[in-house]
């Protein structure tokens, strides 16, 4: 177990190393002046010469990379001339909003998805199943920015129930949460429904019926816990994806998280910030997947942790 976790963490570190090499190489080999890219679009001449000096841009590439790496390892992610402060500080500020939104999305998606899945599995005429399938396809086929704008128009502008963007209160959390949680809950419901229907023919469910249990009791007490495991696997994997995948939603709703910052940095060509989000995102994905795998192994005794 400890050995497994240690190996996985080692792999995460290797991955981060590779990612940092790739991003740095990309920036150096992109058209234009790498000093300009590393300092950000708004840097003045003084800043440019400082950056050249710091990264050793007039030296061979391996020295440049060694210097970049040394700065990374000491926690220096670069300096954002657009925000006029170190990138690391800027990132730290944005962690909380992103984590808050991600958590709220997961909770809402699960709370809506599980009842929906159980309900539609109970009424499995093929018509309903097909309808749920199509609605599911529709919700995942609509881009987040379009769905978000739709919610802004209906719930924010027409009905004036929730603020249309910004950060601060619970109300601000509602629309961005729903934008992602609605399609995901339909998706979870779909998987859960399929699992429940597959389990309906298994021996232990038949035994429970034979004991004379009520239909609902069989579903909730016997089938559901077994059908939930794959859904929870997906949920925990999605959590990792969420921390890096919220960018567009954060941008639409002006939610000051990491993705919002990454998009704005990309738009203003503030390269150090984007580079830092790439590294941070890699760390999130690595740790998230590790936690997901450990969780699944705990929930489902059939899963073995190896390789």
């Amino acid at each position, binding site marked *: 177990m400890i050995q497994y976790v240690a190996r996985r963490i080692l792999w995460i570190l290797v991955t981060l190393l590779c990612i940092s090499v790739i991003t740095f190489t990309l920036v150096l080999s992109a058209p234009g002046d790498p000093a300009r890219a590393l300092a950000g679009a708004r840097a003045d001449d003084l800043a440019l010469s400082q950056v050249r000096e710091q990264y050793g841009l007039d030296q061979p590439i391996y020295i440049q990379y060694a210097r970049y790496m040394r700065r990374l390892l000491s926690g220096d992610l670069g300096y954002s001339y657009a925000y006029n402060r170190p990138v690391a500080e800027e990132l730290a500020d944005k962690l909380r909003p992103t984590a808050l939104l991600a958590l709220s999305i997961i909770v809402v998606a699960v709370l809506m998805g599980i009842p929906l899945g159980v309900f539609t599995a109970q009424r499995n005429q093929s018509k309903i199943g097909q309808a749920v399938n199509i609605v599911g396809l529709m919700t995942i086929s*609509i*881009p987040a*920015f379009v769905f978000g704008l739709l919610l802004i*128009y209906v719930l924010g502008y027409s009905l004036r129930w929730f603020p249309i963007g910004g950060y601060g209160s619970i109300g601000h959390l509602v629309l961005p949460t729903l934008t992602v949680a609605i399609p995901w809950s339909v998706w979870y419901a779909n998987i859960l429904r399929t699992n429940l229907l597959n389990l309906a023919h298994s021996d232990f469910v038949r035994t429970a019926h034979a004991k004379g249990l009520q239909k609902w009791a069989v579903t909730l007490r016997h089938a559901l816990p077994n059908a939930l495991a794959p859904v929870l696997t997906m949920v925990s994997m999605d959590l990792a994806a969420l921390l890096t995948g919220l960018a567009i939603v954060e941008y639409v709703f002006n939610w000051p998280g990491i993705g919002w910052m990454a*998009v704005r940095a*990309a738009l203003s060509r503030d390269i150090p910030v984007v580079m830092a989000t*790439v590294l941070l995102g890699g760390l999130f994905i690595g740790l998230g997947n590790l936690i997901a795998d450990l969780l699944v192994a705990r929930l489902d005794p059939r899963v073995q942790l190896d390789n």
Partner: protein
Amino acid sequence: MQAQAALPGIKETIPAQHTWLGGVWRRFLRQRLAVLAGVVLLAILLSALLAPVIAPYDPEKIFPEGLGNPLPPSDKFWLGTDGRGRDLLSRLLWGGRISLAVGITASTIALSIAVLVGGLAGFLGGRIDYIIMRLVDLMMSVPSFFVILLLVALLNPSPLAVIFVIVLFGWPYPARVFRSEVLSLRRRDFILAAQSLGAPARMIFVRHLLPHVLPLLVVYLSLSIPGAIFTETTLSYLGLGVPPPTPTWGSMVLDGQPYYRVAPWLVLCPGLAIMLTGVCFNLVGNGLREAIDPVRKER
């Protein structure tokens, strides 16, 4: 369809032309929803292809009467005009050209790479397989959207840059799928037979393995195009994709956003176009999967 020399009492059920492709086609036609989606998809593709002929106006032409205040749908402008006084229907038709072309091209390239890389990894095995699969693992733990942001911030926005980033992150997952497919095919008897007849490895791969993987390729193609279109529209929406004034579905949403209170259809029309295209590709893909491999359900 009827029997020519059926034994008495036994109805001959094998149709006259029972080719493999004919069977796939018949099983596909049996799924009404997939057929409907296919027809709609064909209409979308045709209207995008024929945009220069059927679009009522030049998509970049500005009508002064709509400048600054989008006109509602009328006889002259069937879907109204956007905030810069351009005909929305024409832009929708032309926008589909870019979004679909980028999506289809990028997916095709990504999946071709996936078949070759994944197929070779599964076929050759050993050290090559190990290296390729670690590379796939690495690619899949990269936060792709942030890297895409980095790339488009470094490169100048253009359709080619968008295709490049979609391909870059589009091949690893399907490569894994094709690898496992080849792994299971490799143990089948016909491969063993070819091997024992002394067929060279290259011939076995090209002549015996690839033809079995190709149907799967078509399925994955139609399932992965919506994702590619998503990436394109998202980047265009952010203003990091295909540069203006060229219309794409994503940049049309961006252009329409300031007017969402007075003219919500400016956002809704391109949004619905993206959704409809995605749903249709998915339904057709699922239908094809069912038709090609009726026994195995779900991945």
